[in-house]
């Protein structure tokens, strides 16, 4: 079966600085792919490319066979309706309560009767454990509840692909673990493809079918959890074993220290 998402030779540059370097990745239908990597490794940039928020310098991204880097507006619109996205900041609309936030895509893209929309919203909120909190506004929710509400909104149109950007960032370990369980449950019950961007190792190894680890805009490894765990590449080991980089050895820092020592000696 053809992969649901296929990334080929993807290059992304910001102001001439290369952020993603000829990436190739296939995401199979129904799998949970975790994009893992440190801060600034390019995982959120890759995610923004996959959901067509940005255009690459070169390369292609096919979603369900449609090249989203070079397609018409109507095709892009159709593709976007098949992807549900929950952003790192949840990105709920503060002027709408939780119910209206979840109902928004249904009101905009379907001709369902208000009573049916109400029912669908309740089902989506119940699926993420927020059925009793629909009348609250985003500012009245905790961090974990906001993320769950964002997942409920992402699920509203019944997407084939669920994309979660740093779902457990800024949450305490218990809430983060609850969110992991929710992702597993949703994947099992709704049989959807899930893409998760994270740098939380426990979370990544709990929910992933496969992991793609990014380092400075390139994949350092792509494989199953066991394959990644067994990988002996220094980059992968450094990340997995949480070995700190030696900041004093970086050229900018050492140059600064040298200058400081010289001026101290002169003084």
């Amino acid at each position, binding site marked *: 079966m053809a992969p649901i998402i296929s990334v080929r030779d993807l290059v992304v540059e910001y102001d001439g600085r290369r952020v993603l370097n000829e990436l190739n990745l296939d995401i199979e239908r129904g799998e949970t792919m975790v994009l893992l990597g440190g801060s600034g490794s390019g995982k959120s940039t890759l995610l*923004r490319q996959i*959901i067509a*928020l940005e255009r690459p310098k070169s390369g292609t991204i096919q979603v369900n066979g449609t090249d989203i880097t070079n397609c018409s507006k109507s095709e*892009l*619109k159709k593709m*976007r*309706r098949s*992807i549900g*996205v929950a*952003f*790192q*900041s949840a*990105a*709920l*609309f503060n002027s709408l309560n939780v119910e209206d936030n979840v109902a*928004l*895509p249904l*009101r*905009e*893209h379907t001709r369902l009767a208000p009573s049916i929309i109400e029912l669908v919203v309740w089902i989506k909120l119940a699926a993420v454990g927020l059925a009793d909190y629909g009348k609250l506004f985003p500012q009245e929710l905790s961090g974990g509840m906001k993320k769950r509400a964002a997942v409920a909104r992402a699920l509203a149109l019944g997407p084939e692909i669920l994309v979660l950007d740093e779902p457990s960032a800024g949450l305490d370990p218990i809430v983060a673990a609850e969110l992991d369980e929710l992702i597993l449950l949703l994947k099992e019950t709704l049989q959807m493809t899930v893409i998760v961007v994270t740098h939380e190792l426990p979370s990544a190894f709990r929910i992933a079918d496969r992991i793609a680890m990014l380092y400075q805009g390139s994949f350092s490894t792509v494989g199953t959890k066991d394959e990644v765990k067994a990988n002996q590449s220094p980059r992968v080991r450094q990340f997995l074993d949480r070995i700190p980089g030696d900041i004093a050895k970086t050229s900018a820092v050492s140059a600064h220290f040298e200058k400081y020592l010289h001026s101290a000696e002169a003084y």
Partner: protein
Amino acid sequence: MADVLENIGEKTIEHLDYVGSLNIQWWATIRAMAQALPFIGNRYRWRATVKQMLEIGVDAMPMVSLMAICTGFIFAMQGASELRRFGALRYVVDLVAVGFTRELGPLLTAIAVSGRSGSAFAAEIGTMKVTEELDSLRVMALDPVEFVLAPKCLAALISVPCLSIVSNVFGIVAGGLFMLFSIHLTPALYLHYVFEAIDLRDVVMGLIKSVVFGTIIAQVGCLEGFRVRGGPDSVGRSTTTAVVKSTFLVIVADAIFTAIFYFTVKH
């Protein structure tokens, strides 16, 4: 010397880029505005437009009225102090009536709306950008121009001329009160002189200006919001810039319109 030229070139390109962005946004708004119209458009957009009209128009009425009353008094008093010397106190009525309908009414309203609503547009859209709400709209296959900008622009196009009429009325009434207390000119006679002084062309000219001012305020406010980069501090900067630029552009547009009317209309 090279630095100076480089600086001038850089600033010129920056300003041209701004004007270009303003034009692109304006055309996009015109295309999207049909969706914000009642009956033929999307009912949620029309609802948003009505909400915006209340915020731009109704909520600003006390402020605009008070500004017009104060300016009406000032205008009448300053005019009277000079015209009294020539025994032409009666012409204070002409001065206030023509001055308000052609110039002061639309200009005062635009300055008030720019300070209240232009800054609010920039802050709202800038915050939506920082909190990824605009991205969230895009991934839900919703156009931010249609969803956010079109209702604001349509509301400004309707509200600003209405507020200008309110401003005209209060300014002229203030002039009438001054004439009543200073030379005991009866309200009936004052109104008679007012209608003698102004004609339909003056009112229409003021309203055309108001429509243009409303467009400038909405477009600049929204563009500043869309151009927010980085964190919350840039939202603050964008609100200040929105007020400064829209006020400046309103005055420039006023000068251009007044010159056009002056040179094209037979005296």
